[in-house]
């Protein structure tokens, strides 16, 4: 290595960014040295995405500067960032699925001769890049047929081909299996070998500790600190991520309601055989990162995807092949995505709620719109959708009200078990509180509730019991009172406790 010690490969300083009234980043300073893997971590909402978007040029910061090898980079331009050697590999990859590996890798830097693509030179160039990554994907395969890990490799290869020297990998392992992740880490090793720098953004502390040389923690838009990975332990880092949170949670007595849903060795792709009891009147929070299997667990219990193993509902074995089977057994599922699977956005809330009632009716049953409307209005009142115009499309409602409409419909199905996937997604803080109350109220009426959230503190607040998942398996469970947010963060990020 050369003079890189004095002028870091990448240095960002004084970066600030506001979105409306929200300060996403405040005076962030950050640098990456040549030949280094630098971990960038932080809780949800800490500002990682914003920082990544600024590095990629997708958004311009309000103030601050960026330099590569000491030379300033114009901000807010994707093209300039790429020319300076910054390459961001996103969670959602930007590849052409119907083109070959070779075409994808060379897409941004096509060698030409007289206006035509120089196929031989292209092949040589791509081959050289992939060799340097230590892989041997068949160049003529179509990207659509590749595994996610291979696609990431192609994306990295493309960035290398385009002269990239700083790679930002945004949650690269969230959807990878363990051997695939190991392969990716080898690739990362190969990149830094060539004196490039890698920014490794991840929720998974075990990985961050395994492959980085330094770690920077963001919290609430500010840099909490940068450490040499060798000199720091998981406890310090989690503490930096979470801060000193006063644990002011309501204490709850353990539920003694009857078990309504019992899973024994239930599994689905991405979830190892799981034992889980859901009791009447109890709220169980599934804690885990994206890709840890929490979402899949809810989907398999709700009949959305096929499950193997034993699931018993209300004393009889349940084999759900369709959500309709689960609903008949009293198990209802709420999807996380309101646009895609949750609501008919172009229809009114009354219409959306009526769907639950109509599910029970025979095909040629006559619809009594008056009755449906009255029932719908009552349900919407119950969940507190304010008396705005209930005939207008749900799309015009706020996120909080949309979430309530979904809950109203679930309640209309007469559930014994409610499975709520990311139950406060896209809902503002005030509405979150109201939805928490609703959920507690439903539990008090004897419904068994199992829910997930990306916000771990929220889970601790709402749930009676926490089941913690990491890489598709359950790693801990117990009364919510027995978890601190520190312990929970460490469990979901590393799969084990600190002590």
């Amino acid at each position: 290595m050369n003079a890189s010690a004095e002028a870091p490969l990448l240095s960002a300083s004084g970066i600030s960014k506001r979105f409306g009234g929200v300060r996403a980043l405040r005076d962030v300073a950050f640098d990456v040295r040549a030949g280094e893997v630098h971990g960038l971590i932080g809780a949800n909402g800490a500002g990682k995405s914003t920082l990544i978007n600024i590095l990629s040029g997708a958004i311009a910061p309000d103030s601050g500067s960026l330099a590569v090898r000491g030379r300033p980079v114009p901000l807010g331009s994707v093209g300039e960032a790429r020319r300076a050697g910054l390459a961001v590999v996103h969670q959602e990859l930007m590849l052409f699925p119907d083109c070959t590996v070779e075409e994808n890798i060379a897409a941004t830097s096509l060698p030409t001769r007289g206006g035509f693509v120089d196929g031989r030179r292209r092949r040589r160039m791509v081959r050289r890049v992939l060799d340097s990554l230590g892989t041997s994907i068949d160049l003529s395969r179509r990207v659509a047929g590749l595994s996610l890990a291979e696609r990431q490799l192609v994306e990295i290869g493309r960035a290398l081909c385009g002269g990239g020297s700083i790679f930002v990998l945004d949650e690269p392992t969230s959807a990878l299996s363990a051997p695939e992740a190991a392969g990716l880490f080898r690739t990362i090793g190969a990149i830094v070998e060539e004196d490039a720098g890698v920014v490794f953004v991840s929720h998974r502390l075990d990985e961050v500790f395994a492959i980085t040389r330094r770690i920077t923690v963001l919290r609430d838009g500010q840099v909490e600190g940068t450490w040499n990975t060798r000199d720091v332990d998981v406890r310090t880092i989690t503490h930096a991520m979470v801060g000193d949170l006063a644990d002011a949670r309501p204490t709850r007595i353990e539920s003694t309601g009857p078990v309504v849903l019992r899973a024994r060795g239930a599994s689905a792709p991405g979830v190892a055989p799981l034992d889980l009891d859901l009791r009447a009147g109890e709220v169980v929070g599934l804690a885990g990162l994206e890709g840890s299997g929490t979402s899949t667990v809810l989907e398999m219990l709700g009949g959305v995807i096929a499950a193997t193993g034993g699931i018993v509902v209300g004393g009889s074995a349940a084999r759900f092949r369709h959500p309709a089977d689960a609903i008949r057994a009293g198990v209802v599922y709420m999807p996380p995505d309101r646009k895609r699977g949750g609501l008919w956005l172009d229809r009114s809330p009354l219409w959306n709620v009526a769907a639950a009632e109509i599910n029970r009716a025979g095909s040629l049953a006559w619809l009594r719109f008056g009755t449906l409307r009255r029932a719908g209005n009552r349900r919407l009142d119950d969940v507190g959708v304010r008396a705005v115009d209930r005939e207008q499309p749900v799309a015009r409602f706020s996120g909080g009200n949309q979430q309530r409409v979904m809950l109203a419909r679930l309640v209309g199905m007469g559930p014994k078990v409610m499975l709520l996937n990311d139950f406060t997604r896209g809902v503002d803080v005030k509405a979150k509180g109201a939805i928490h109350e609703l959920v507690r109220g439903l539990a008090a009426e004897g419904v068994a509730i199992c829910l997930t959230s990306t916000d771990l503190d929220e889970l601790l607040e709402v749930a009676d019991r926490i089941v913690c998942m990491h890489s598709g398996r359950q790693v801990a469970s117990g009364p919510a009172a027995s978890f601190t947010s520190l312990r929970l963060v460490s469990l979901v990020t590393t799969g084990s406790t600190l002590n």
Partner: protein
Amino acid sequence: MTDNPEATVSSAVPDPAGPASERGRWRFAFDELGILVAAVIFFAIGSLSSPYFLTLDNLTGILQSITFLGFLSIGVGLALIAGEIDISVGSIYALAAVVAALLLKNGYGVPVAFAGGLGVGLACGLVNGIVAQVINVSAVVVTLATLGVYRAITLVTAGGSPITGMPEAPLFFDGFGQGGIAGISYITILFLVVAICAEIVLRKTAFGFRLLAVGSNPVAARLVGFRVERMRIALLALSGLLAALSGVCSVAYLHTAGPTAGAGYELTVLAAAIIGGVQLSGGRGSIIGVLLGLCVIGIIQNLIVLWGISPNWTQGVSGIVLIAAVTVTWLTRRDQGKANPIARG
């Protein structure tokens, strides 16, 4: 999930549904206003431009001209509203006609011929639905394939030429086929009854609600517990059945069954549905709208004859009306988020 500060300020982003307007309030009252206005305009143009247009003979003639297409348009319309499509109807129409005619010719009698024709149509529709469901391919692809397959079966069965020389069956050919009340043929009356039933089922029953729900958001429909897969098969089967009903009626009316009959019907029916306000991506539309769309096409064809213009213009005018109708629909619905109504695989 990574952190996403943008999400916390989403209230600053304009509402995807656009500013609140008065439209939402009335949308459920009558969605077919546009096509109704269009039909009235064409009707007015017709009555002002030609003294013959408003005569009973001419009007019942228009009605008769759209009757056979009408049966098809009911089935295809329902499929479209649920986000499906059936373009094999023209072939099923001919196949059912040929089967019914052959049964008659071979002395099986009217009930058997009727049942045979309808049965074949139902089977064709079921095949469409089951194949689409089992190999998980869009109904466009499957029915495009069976459009050819059913046509070939028809041609082979009929030996390539129209089937004639059926034995006398006065009740079927002269009574049902040619008779009528007040100048309106029994077949047209049957068609109108079926259409009214279909509209009622769509508007007033649980099945109709589910159909609209599946068309508007199939993922949500499945999660709410609607059997989206079965509905898909049922609708394509129904579409085949109605096409067959039309085919069998055409035998009674025409006294013959041509193996090439009904070619191109699928496109006319699709045009009528779109003119009538059906959203190609599903979730929106009505049978009344489809029938009014068909009426507009019927009036255009009629006027071209009355005005003495070359019939070569017919398709061109229909095409221009189609574009105009889609433009009007787009203008009135663009605040509802579903962008391009044509874009659906």
